[in-house]
């Protein structure tokens, strides 16, 4: 019989030995996979901006990261990024909320049709569910819907064929259509559309709502597939660009990330087929002293991304080539960051800052 229930807790279970005494670039035993991800398995990715790092690094390590909507032949990377080819496994852009993920899956399987599907700006028309993927928009709403129909066919295929789904929870805050409850990835009027408070309302999804959305998403796949995929969830460490809650953005960001981390934790604890990868902890742990954030205190440094991906790949691809060792984080605001290579619609909100 032990004298204390903590007597047999391993070193990783104590703050001093598990964190304080650890190298922040390589915290030991922080991540033990629930299941392996093998290179041949079909991996699909979605989520907020930070998820793009995961896709990119897995591709670089020759994992089978699905790409159902590839760039046209001969298109260079920077142009492909402009049109969001290869950013994720399909061209859905960033999916910041679990509610939008569920909505997309339902739409792809013909279970729902979102309202207010086409937004207009300067005489051009945009897909309200992914307004950034065609920066110049289309000439008519009909063209937008034709493009969406093609896109949904690819999403449907992806949802049916993937072995592993990697999803990064990004935000709890979203804008929705009052009447239909359709969720949008960006605020109307940010990239396209017009903000009308009679039509749209702000929504800050709760823990219960976020959890329910993801569980329902899983149910959709269970219903549509013979064999369900496995899920790897992460939480984006990138703070909110802006909040519409009326609170201080730091408090709002902490709330949002706490909810998402709580949801990810509950999914991990209660679903055998859901694993959690602690990229959030790796980047934000106090022991890093904020070194994994750029000078803007939002963007994650290259060292931070590398540390997170090294932690991931040490478990899933231990024989692969090493990722470049972490370097001291640059602090100059004008240094190009890994975030500069990302497509982040949320960052457009910065343009509205006073």
């Amino acid at each position, binding site marked *: 019989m032990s004298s204390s229930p903590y007597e047999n807790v391993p070193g990783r279970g104590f703050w001093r030995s598990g964190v304080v005494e650890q190298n922040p670039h390589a915290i030991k035993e922080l991540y033990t996979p629930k299941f392996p991800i093998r290179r041949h398995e079909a991996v699909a990715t979605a989520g907020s901006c930070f998820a793009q790092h995961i896709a990119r690094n897995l591709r670089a390590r020759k994992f089978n990261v699905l790409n159902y*909507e590839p760039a*046209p*032949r*001969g*298109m*260079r990377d920077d*142009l492909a990024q*402009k*049109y969001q080819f290869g950013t994720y496994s399909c061209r859905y852009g960033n999916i910041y909320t679990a509610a939008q993920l569920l909505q997309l899956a339902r739409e792809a399987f013909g279970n729902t049709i979102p309202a207010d599907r086409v937004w207009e700006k300067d005489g051009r028309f945009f897909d309200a569910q992914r307004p950034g993927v*065609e*920066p*110049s*928009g*289309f*000439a*008519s709403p009909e*063209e937008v819907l*034709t*493009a969406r*129909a*093609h*896109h949904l066919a690819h999403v449907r295929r992806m949802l049916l064929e993937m072995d592993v789904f990697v999803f990064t929870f990004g935000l709890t805050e979203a804008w929705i259509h009052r009447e239909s409850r359709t969720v949008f990835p960006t605020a109307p009027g940010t990239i396209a559309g017009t903000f009308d408070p009679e039509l749209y309302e702000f929504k800050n999804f709760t823990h219960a709502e976020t959890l329910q959305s993801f569980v329902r998403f899983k149910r959709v796949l269970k219903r549509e597939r013979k064999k369900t995929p496995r899920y790897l969830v992460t939480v984006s460490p990138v703070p909110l660009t802006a909040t519409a809650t009326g609170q201080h953005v730091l408090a709002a960001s902490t709330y949002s990330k706490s909810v998402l981390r709580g949801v990810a934790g509950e999914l991990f604890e209660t679903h055998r087929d859901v694993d959690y990868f602690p990229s959030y902890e790796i980047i934000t742990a106090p022991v890093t002293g904020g070194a994994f954030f750029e000078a803007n205190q939002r963007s994650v440094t290259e060292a931070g991304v590398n540390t997170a991906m090294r932690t991931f790949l040490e478990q899933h691809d231990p024989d692969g080539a090493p990722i470049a060792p972490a370097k001291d984080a640059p602090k100059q605001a004008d240094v190009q960051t890994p975030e500069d290579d990302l497509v982040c619609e949320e960052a457009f909100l910065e343009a509205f800052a006073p």
Partner: protein
Amino acid sequence: MSRKICVLGNSHIAALKGGWETAAPAKPLSPDFFGALSKGMESLALIDGKLLPSDPEAAAFYCDISGKGTGAIPEDYEAFVLCGMGMFPNPVFNNYASYATPSTHNTSAEYYVSDACLDDLLWDHIDRSMMMHCARLVRAVTDAPVHLVWQAFWSEALFNIEWRATQMSPILENNDQDYIHARMRAVETRLSDEGFSVLQQPKDTLAQGVMTKEEFSRGSVLFREGLNQPHRDNDVFHMNSDYGAKCWNTWEI
């Protein structure tokens, strides 16, 4: 009084040179032809006041083929014509079967993107081409008109090559020639913004709108001194002297 024209290009210049020399049109023009093989014109530079490739091998060829034994002096010319050098809508042809746009009729294409997406892709291809390196250099050293020439559409002899036939057939079946031309016009708008004009392929050399009649590619010759060595069989890219003569007769320079 003949206007002095400086013609710059790569292997595609052979048709223009041959066309001028074998069937000189009655036009008050006096063209000089400067060029280099393959990627030689990538190194075109202004050296001691002369347009000349910095690559020694390319420079030697360039000087020899012109018959001048030296580089082109920009002030000597009243207009410049630049041909070949990658100015061709390759990406539009290459992606047609898989990528539909609002302007196409290929309903069986797997992907659907905006016309702007293909316009950007083609512009990026042209923008990085050897043609634009040379064109911008010339633009920087002279105020004379600078005319750029699209490479001729591939010869209809392409139907002798299975994969090329497979690539071209859907465009013809869907009557999407206008789509190809629209992408080219979009490039021309951007070129115009940079101060360039574009000379079009003569209409009577076209086959089905987006190919060149086989009679204009048959017997095309290599860009070599003497211009008498034929290209390989099934060369669908290079045109012959008859094509060059058609161009000279059609263009207003």
